[in-house]
């Protein structure tokens, strides 16, 4: 993902939070997201939404993206951005992933769908060497 790192350096502001995670550090990751969201100006509802997004994207990275990942959180004007990257095998259908609610009886596949309901926008970049999912939350809503 070297190319996108170069683009990142010019485009993405300094991250408030830039934290690696794996299955054993999920509690710490969620606590960090909650604390930083508040510091960045999120109200209780936006904080809850951000925690939902961070939790689901991180869980997906752990369960399907190689067991570990990196989470970055930053503010850009009136929006909060949460980007979770992993070095897993990638998504087969990034545009279609999480677009449809799985039936209740289905065991999984619901995390990304929930993220799409909660975030204003979701952008997915994926390939055989890894995946980056960026979700955007409005600070001024509600």
């Amino acid at each position, binding site marked *: 993902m070297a190319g996108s790192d170069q683009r990142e350096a010019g485009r993405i502001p300094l991250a408030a939070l830039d934290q690696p995670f794996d*299955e054993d550090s*999920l*509690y710490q990751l*969620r606590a960090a997201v909650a604390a930083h969201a508040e510091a960045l100006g999120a109200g*209780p509802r936006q904080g*809850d*939404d951000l*925690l*939902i997004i961070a*939790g*689901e994207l991180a*869980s997906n990275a752990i*369960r399907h993206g190689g067991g570990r990942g990196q989470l970055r959180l930053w503010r850009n004007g009136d929006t909060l951005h949460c980007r979770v990257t992993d070095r897993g095998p990638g998504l087969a259908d990034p545009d279609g992933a999480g677009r449809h*609610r799985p039936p*209740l*009886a289905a*065991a*999984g596949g*619901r*995390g990304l769908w*929930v993220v799409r*309901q*909660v975030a204003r926008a979701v952008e997915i970049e994926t390939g055989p060497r890894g995946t980056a999912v960026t979700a955007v939350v409005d600070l001024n809503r509600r």
Partner: protein
Amino acid sequence: MGSGDHACLTFSDAEERLDIVSAFVRDGLGLGQKVICFTESIPPGQLVGELADREVPTRTPAARGQLAVRSSDESWLAGGTVTAAGMVDMLGREVELASREGYPGLRVTADMCWALRPVAAAEQLMVFEAEVGKLFSDGRLTAICQYDRHNFDPVTLAFAARAHPRAVAAAVYYEDPLLRICRQYTPPGIRVAGELDYRRVEELTQALAESLRLDHHVHVNLAQLRYLDVAAATAVVQAAASLPDGRVMTVVCGPAVDRTLTLVCGSELARLRVRVAHGRQ
């Protein structure tokens, strides 16, 4: 708990103590027994409220004298010095009184932290627990002594455990410093505290399955759950969906958990009711 049982409840979780005491009171009232609660750290009025919150009938039994909630101050500490002999006598008199009043038995539960006060000699607690055993032999007295782990030293707790023929505690499905999944008795179901995600969905499902098997209506107490992920929320909603007509799952939770459950559940499920409780955490 059977008549004549003398059990020790050692607890760290305040909710668990209230849950088990409520079940003990409810069962005793249901058997027609007289019930006396001696309370110390929780004022009597507040304890009555906690019992009522857990669907234990309080007003009618209290009005007719079947249920009494008393503070230690007005009971065995009233006379000044506490002695084991004095307390055993007092309990013996209460057992006789209950019999004369026509009750088939007396249930007593007591918060034992009165023993930590300076006026109560600590060694008298040990003598009390040893001597009180003789009151249980004819089955007219059933008791639970409550010991808060935060207040008592390990030596006293070990002695208390040995002095009681039985111990009561909630069945625990999973426990670590950040998550506890246990059985709830009043109202019946499960209680989860801490943070719950996909890693413990198996234990959650096990707890839900047991409640589905044992309880007509299932209560899922998530009031002290700070975080519930989509995978765990799915397990809860799937369990509710599996209930046959006439049976309902009631979830109590905070606003954040409610949001996740609503996202997972989508359209209204008749069998799932969610009550959002603010400020319990």
